[in-house]
């Protein structure tokens, strides 16, 4: 194993470097995945069948809450990594916990929103527009859910082993993932909700 101490901890072994590059590539594939979902959504976004239109469906309030929660969680996730670089375990854990809580809040609002839609008679089976909407949002939501589980697992490891090459690497990769979900959300916010409400 190469140990180059001039590098940040998460990059310090060859395997760590490989993992980070590999994860960037995986995010590239994720971009394609979400692009495909967006394309499907745009293709079907005017096919309402007999179901409701975005105007009848969307409410800005919940969406703004979701946006606020996820964006803030992305920021605190960045702060957590910053603390990690400084070797400060306690602030790192605190910021991670805040990140997770905000993520959980986002998910809560999203689930409430889904329940409202379904109560309004807008289910995933109603129309092509709604199928693609639920699938796009649901895929993002599933990613957030997975992120919460994953992030929690990493937090436990940081607590157990402290900040070392392995946990630093994992935390950093997790932060990449979390920021990515934030970017996807910004696209959803702009091109699904704002465009739908315009």
């Amino acid at each position: 194993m190469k140990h180059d101490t001039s590098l940040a901890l998460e990059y310090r072994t060859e395997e760590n470097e490989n993992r980070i590059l590999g994860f960037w590539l995986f995010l590239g594939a994720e971009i394609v995945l979400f692009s495909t979902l967006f394309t499907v959504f745009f293709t079907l976004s005017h096919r309402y069948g007999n179901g409701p239109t975005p105007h009848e469906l969307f409410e800005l309030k919940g969406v703004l809450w979701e946006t606020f929660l996820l964006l803030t969680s992305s920021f605190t996730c960045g702060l957590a990594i910053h603390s990690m670089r400084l070797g400060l375990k306690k602030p790192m854990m605190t910021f991670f916990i805040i990140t997770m809580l905000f993520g959980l809040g986002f998910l809560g609002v999203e689930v409430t929103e889904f329940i409202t839609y379904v109560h309004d008679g807008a289910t995933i089976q109603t129309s092509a527009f709604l199928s693609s909407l639920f699938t796009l949002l649901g895929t993002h939501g599933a990613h957030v859910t997975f992120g919460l589980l994953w992030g929690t697992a990493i937090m436990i490891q940081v607590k157990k082993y402290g900040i070392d090459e392995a946990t630093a690497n994992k935390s950093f990769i997790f932060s990449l993932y979390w920021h990515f979900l934030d970017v996807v959300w910004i696209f959803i916010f702009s091109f699904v909700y704002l465009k739908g409400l315009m």
Partner: protein
Amino acid sequence: MKNKGPLFVVFLLFAVLLSGCSPLTVLDPKGPVAKTQSDTIMFSVFVMAGILAVVYILYIYMLTKYRATKANEDYVPPHIEGSKWLELIWTIIPVIIVIVLSVVSVRSTAAVETTPKGYENEKPLVIYASSSNWKWHFSYPEEGIETVNYVNIPTNRTVEFRLYSYGPITSFWIPQLGGQKYAMSDMVTKLRLVAEHADSYLGRNSNFNGKGYAQMEFEAQAMSPADYRKWVHDVKTTAPALTKEEFNTLLNTPFVGRKTYSSTHLSFSPPPMEGKDMSNMNMDHKTDEKDSSSSTKTDGMNMNHMDGMNMDSMNMDHTQHSNN
């Protein structure tokens, strides 16, 4: 090596077979559209034959000249990086060939997508050809008649087939009159063909659509305009009218023989959003629904669901609720 010779012979046979007075259906056109396509095919075959010849000559040369068994004991092949000029040549010449073929492709495609030359002045005869299960329905809106599994057309007049499907995607193909086009459930596609010889042509669905696919053929009978008028007149006077019930029964029967009717299904089961731009057709769909009377609409929808899957009927119930 030695035995690639036969391959070359096979290829020559291939070229000779194609270029000779060949009996192959596609290369035996009976109308201007198929003629354009057949000419395009033959042109491309000759270009491709040229390319094959160059490759095969080089190939045979390399294999006969540079075999290890022919070389001296101490022959060591030289190190050759490549050659700018040669590599440039075999980039540029193919580029030129592709440009030529692109022009041919675009022009011939434009030609087969519009009314054939010489027939522009006359209004085309419109026939709706729709597929359901494993049969074809032909509706003649101008004449007000409908046939199943056979279509009669006048010679020397453009026939505009408007294609759609009551189920899986099918493809409408009469090889000797011209190439195929898809028939789909949510849009109408158009195929313009002209028959220049009075004859019977085999037509079929060429896109796989389930169990009865192999049998999904129809006869296209081209007849002189006089004969055609007489046939239309006969149908109008002797054939029964096509009722909604009769049409539903037809849709639900996997295979039927030939049928002839003195009215069409277009009034009670209209084709999907005809000739409208795909991007905004849903908006139109919505307004259409609002304008038309509700009974027509439900019938039209039922047609689409002849198999009556539970799931779909559930959805329909659901949508009706939300409308109410």
